[in-house]
């Protein structure tokens, strides 16, 4: 074990943390936005809304993230009409493609988590709310969403951790995040074990902080409920 090398490479690898966090942060925000819309579509009784949501989730969850990234970055670039359209302004950028892929992925998984949370709301609560004269929007805002968030939070915390780990794939589209930098160092030092231990520890630390944050919000939200 070459500890001096681990020490040296630590300072190079941490330079990848901002990119990793940027990708996680942006795709999580956009992903959550789409996830809420998709979950609402999914529970809708209108087939025109629920079917597209169902198939979107089906395709994204049923295919490997690595292939999705390949398809969006290298695959779409094969079509001349895409390269000549305004879309190319976005798709040319590896960072955009990385964030887009992860956004779609987390949107699909989170939509299912949110749907599960929504369906866990006891029908009696909704009936009681309507009998008190609450409108559909009021019921969503005051009854369904608060209970959904409380129910879905533990599973959503899990999804956030998976997102941090999923960013390790984006080095294949030339983005030098934690894993990308680690691989570059390995290719020069030929010491995969040492370098991957360093990179792995950094992911562990990031995910430790995320689990603490989730735990903190869970406690906050459960405050005042009967347990």
């Amino acid at each position, binding site marked *: 074990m070459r500890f001096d090398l681990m020490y040296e490479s630590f300072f190079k690898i941490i330079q990848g943390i901002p990119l990793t966090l940027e990708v996680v942060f942006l795709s999580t925000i956009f992903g959550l936005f789409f996830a809420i819309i998709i979950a609402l579509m999914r529970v809708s009784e209108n087939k025109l809304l629920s079917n597209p949501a169902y198939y979107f989730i089906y395709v994204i969850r049923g295919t490997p993230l690595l292939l999705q990234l390949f398809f969006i970055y*290298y695959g779409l*670039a*094969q079509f001349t009409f895409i*390269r000549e359209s305004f879309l190319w302004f976005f798709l*040319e950028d*590896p960072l955009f493609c990385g964030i887009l892929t992860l956004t779609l992925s987390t949107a699909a998984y989170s939509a299912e988590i949110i749907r599960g949370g929504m369906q866990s709301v006891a029908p009696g609560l909704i009936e009681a709310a309507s009998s008190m004269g609450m409108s559909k929007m009021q019921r969503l805002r005051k009854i369904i969403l608060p209970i959904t968030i409380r129910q879905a939070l533990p599973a959503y915390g899990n999804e956030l951790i998976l997102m941090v780990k999923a960013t390790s794939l984006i*080095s*294949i589209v*030339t983005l*030098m995040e934690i894993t*990308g930098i680690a*691989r*570059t160092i*390995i*290719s*020069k030092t*030929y*010491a*995969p074990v040492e370098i991957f231990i360093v990179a792995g520890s950094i992911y562990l630390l990031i995910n430790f902080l995320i689990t603490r944050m989730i735990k903190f919000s869970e406690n906050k939200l459960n405050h005042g409920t009967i347990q």
Partner: protein
Amino acid sequence: MRIIKVFTTLLITLSLSTFALAGDWSKIKVGTEGAYEPWNYTNAAGELVGAELDLARDLCARMNADCEFIQQDWDGIIPALVQGKYDVIMAGMSITEERMKTISFSSAYMTEPAKMSTLKGSPLATLSTAKNLNLDDDSAASKGTIGTLNAALKGLRLGVTAATIHEDFANAYLDVDLKIYPTQDEMNLDLSAGRIDAALSDSGTIEAYMGTPSGANVTFFGPNIFGGLLGEGVGAGIRQGDADLKAMFDKAIAEAAADGTIGRISTQYFGKDLAP
């Protein structure tokens, strides 16, 4: 009891395979990348093919050895040799001082310059430079050639594959926005898509791509680059302890070069004689 038996058998098999008797080279495992046409690549049927596969079979026959090919991603190809996953690397790997710190090499079996490529119609395509750039040559002329390249490429996006002599060259000599790819195939796709302005690689590899429909609009520019940190040609990578295996490869390569086998194989795959 049964599980102990299985375990013991496994251990014995493992130790036998790891600590094969020194000097017993009747079976040689050859590691290659399989993503570097025409040196070594994977055909539509999923088989490993290429100039180095043909050459390895020829060399193995000369050494009276059974050769087995093992595919390994490029950025892990040296660690896997050191760890004993295979005995020899034949993967278009140039002999460089940097790599010699970790492994040893046979004598070179083929030599080929590095070259830049871009899309036809790019301003770079018409760049005029000296024909050759020898990095061992410190003269004003070669410094001028590097200067011309740098001026033309300044701030542009240049693609290289990770952990190659081309990446080292770009880091040492050029002031560009460097994009690093896991394999040549991915870099080719981005060159055609216009995500990079130019690519730097072995000339033969990019020539193979130019022969395909998607690579038809790719063209060379700039000098043939060789020498210095680009190394002394392509050789077989061998663990530093295996001096006997290196001697066997040196002898077989010398014979294959002398009787025209290397010339024939390289002409078949590269359209020119790359014998050292």
